[in-house]
């Protein structure tokens, strides 16, 4: 198969040209398809998502979650360990690896740091590493025991995997939005920005002590970005990512008390959002994630402060990237942060259009519109602030290892795009 007239993003920049499967492997099929300027992107790499499998499969499971990812152009997802039970032992990792053979896209597993994510006892990190985890995290539960956190980092360092840290001081980090003028106006109990940066500074200090690679998940405040920027300058082994929603929404947007805008960490203030943009532009921020977090309608259709934290992310990631690019951030930079940069960060052999890499790629039409609805969303859940909204930009087809895992039938007509 040969795609002509493509706008190819190779992981760094765009160039026009022709694109064929034999970029990756020997392909005798010389059938041509004129893409007429559509984008060809490396398959997106989302290093932070909640697939809810096992134990929370009313929200999502490995199959629906990866179908949703494929619809969003994502070909590798990291499954966070806050499942029921938690992914905290080797058998569980092996079970999920087995199950993900049937998934639509590649699934990488993040193992828990402590048993049951309870912050008390270390998990068998070596054994989970042997089973193939890509990092360790207690995810939503920040390890309040600094001594335990230190030992976890020492283990992770000798194993050669990162600790992924959701930085949030347990006592200050209560509340349902970011504290500020809008929390005062909306009467919502809120958490101050320093609930995050206090925890970030502890992780920086512990990384300094242990030399471990500590990856700060979804930074959301100016003070966190500043601390991480300085730590990187100081040669400390710190990296971080930002959630795409935090680049699009702000605290002010909670005026309608829509529970599908409730997320942890909460939406930033306008000033904090500017700092996140600056962090992207000067490469303080290494990657963009979705933090895809499905919840059922029943769980979300309650009072704002009673609702759980979390927003869907996979299927609108590229749409949100286009929204952010309109605010003045270069689209190449944003795309790099969901392709080659996260791949480099986690030493994954993907994220670029390049010979020798697996044929993971996406065909994307930046001009086509689609409406986010129960009928179009592939996830089991619908907790997205974009529900019933029309978005610019549509994934036309997604390929994993040369195999088509998603196609938009309306765009090409069935039968034109097909399995390679």
């Amino acid at each position: 198969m040969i795609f002509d007239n493509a706008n190819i993003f190779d992981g760094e920049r765009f160039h026009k040209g022709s694109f064929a499967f034999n970029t990756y492997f020997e392909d005798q099929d010389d059938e041509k398809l004129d893409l007429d300027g559509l984008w060809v992107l490396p398959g997106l790499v989302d290093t932070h998502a909640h697939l809810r499998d096992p134990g929370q499969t009313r929200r999502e499971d490995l199959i629906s979650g990866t179908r949703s990812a494929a619809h969003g152009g994502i070909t590798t997802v990291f499954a966070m360990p806050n499942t029921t039970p938690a992914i905290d032992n080797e058998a569980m990792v092996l079970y999920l690896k087995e199950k993900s053979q049937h998934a639509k896209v590649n699934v990488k597993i993040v193992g828990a740091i402590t048993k049951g994510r309870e912050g008390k006892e270390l998990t068998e990190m070596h054994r989970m590493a042997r089973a193939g985890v890509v990092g360790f995290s207690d995810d939503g539960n920040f390890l309040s025991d600094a001594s335990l956190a230190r030992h976890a980092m020492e283990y992770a360092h000798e194993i050669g995997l990162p600790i992924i840290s959701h930085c949030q001081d347990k006592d200050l980090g209560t509340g349902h939005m970011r504290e500020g003028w809008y929390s005062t106006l909306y009467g919502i109990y809120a958490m101050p920005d320093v609930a995050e940066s206090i925890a970030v500074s502890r992780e920086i200090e512990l990384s300094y002590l242990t030399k471990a690679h500590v990856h700060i998940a979804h930074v959301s405040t100016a003070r966190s970005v500043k601390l991480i920027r300085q730590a990187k300058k100081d040669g400390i082994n710190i990296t971080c990512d930002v959630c795409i929603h935090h680049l699009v929404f702000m605290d002010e947007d909670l005026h309608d008390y829509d529970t599908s805008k409730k997320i942890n960490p909460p939406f930033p203030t306008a000033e904090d959002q500017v700092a996140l943009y600056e962090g992207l532009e000067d490469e303080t921020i290494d990657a963009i994630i979705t933090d895809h977090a499905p919840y059922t309608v029943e769980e979300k259709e309650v009072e704002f402060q009673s609702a759980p934290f979390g927003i869907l992310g996979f299927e609108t990631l590229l749409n949100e990237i286009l929204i952010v690019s309109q605010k003045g951030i270069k689209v190449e930079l944003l795309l790099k942060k969901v392709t080659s940069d996260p791949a480099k960060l986690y030493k994954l052999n993907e994220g670029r259009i390049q010979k020798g890499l697996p044929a993971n790629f996406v065909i994307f039409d930046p001009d086509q519109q689609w409406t986010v609805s129960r009928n179009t969303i592939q996830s089991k859940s619908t907790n997205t602030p974009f529900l019933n909204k029309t978005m610019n930009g549509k994934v036309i087809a997604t390929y994993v290892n040369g195999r088509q895992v998603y196609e938009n039938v309306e765009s090409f007509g069935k039968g034109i795009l097909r399995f390679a």
Partner: protein
Amino acid sequence: MSILGKDLFDVDVLTTDDVMSIFQMAKKFKESGFAKKWMSLKGKTICTLFFESSTRTRISFEIAAKRLGSDVVNFTASTSSLNKGESFKDTVKTLDAMGIDLYVIRHSEPGSPMMLKKYTQSLVINAGDGIRGHPTQAILDAYTMWEKFGKLEGLKVTIVGDIFHSRVARSNVKLLTSMGADVTLTGPATLMPLNVEKYGVKVSYDVKKAVSNSDIVMGLRMQLERQSSTCFSSLDEYNEFYGITPEIMKYAKPTSIFMHPGPMNRGVEVIESISDSDSSFVEEQVTNGVFVRMALLNQMLGGVVE
């Protein structure tokens, strides 16, 4: 009658003209006294929907509605099916299937009146949503000041106490500043919301300075049930530094009045000799509450009074 057919989620939906129109009608109702029964809302059904305990606000609405000839049904969470695990949504949909014209809702969650509106075409009045807003209290407070002083423009109002947990303070601040009053907030820093000066108010942690030259000193209930243990040390110390005492009231204007949305924690935020003094307008607030709510209900539902 521009609030006809509109919801009252908070005071910021009201224009100055709306407020004055409510005041004029409340005045008319008050001049006719409690004995006069109006029938302008005959045939309407008003539902008070209280998910949080309340005595005065619920009864005030009920009396107001009945004086206008409306039928009233009361729903309180303690006697409802909420205890059986029925959700907010199902409760509202069930009630809505029975033909309600207007809901008066109180709930511990901010934004709950807007959430209610998602499930009903009927009108909604917010009677207190968490720590966010309590618009009818703010309107009756402003009415009480307007009645006493003949204006709101330029009045110096000082609100003392637990501002953070007070929906009354938040709605009052919005309404009073929009009507041209000069508002100062005072109390301990632990009970002051972040960036509160953006409302266009002054903030002081020194009660004496804040109260100086005030026309109105408004106390707020210490919301002990909402506060975490780290907000202050002892009620005794609180009373000494932030309580409203005769000594504090001396800093206010000689013509000043004391107001409080109730219920009062006597001996905590205010001491007996103030709350029972001639300058206390607390009972007047309660009385005005009925007439102001009559005016609101009548205007929202389009009642005609001669």
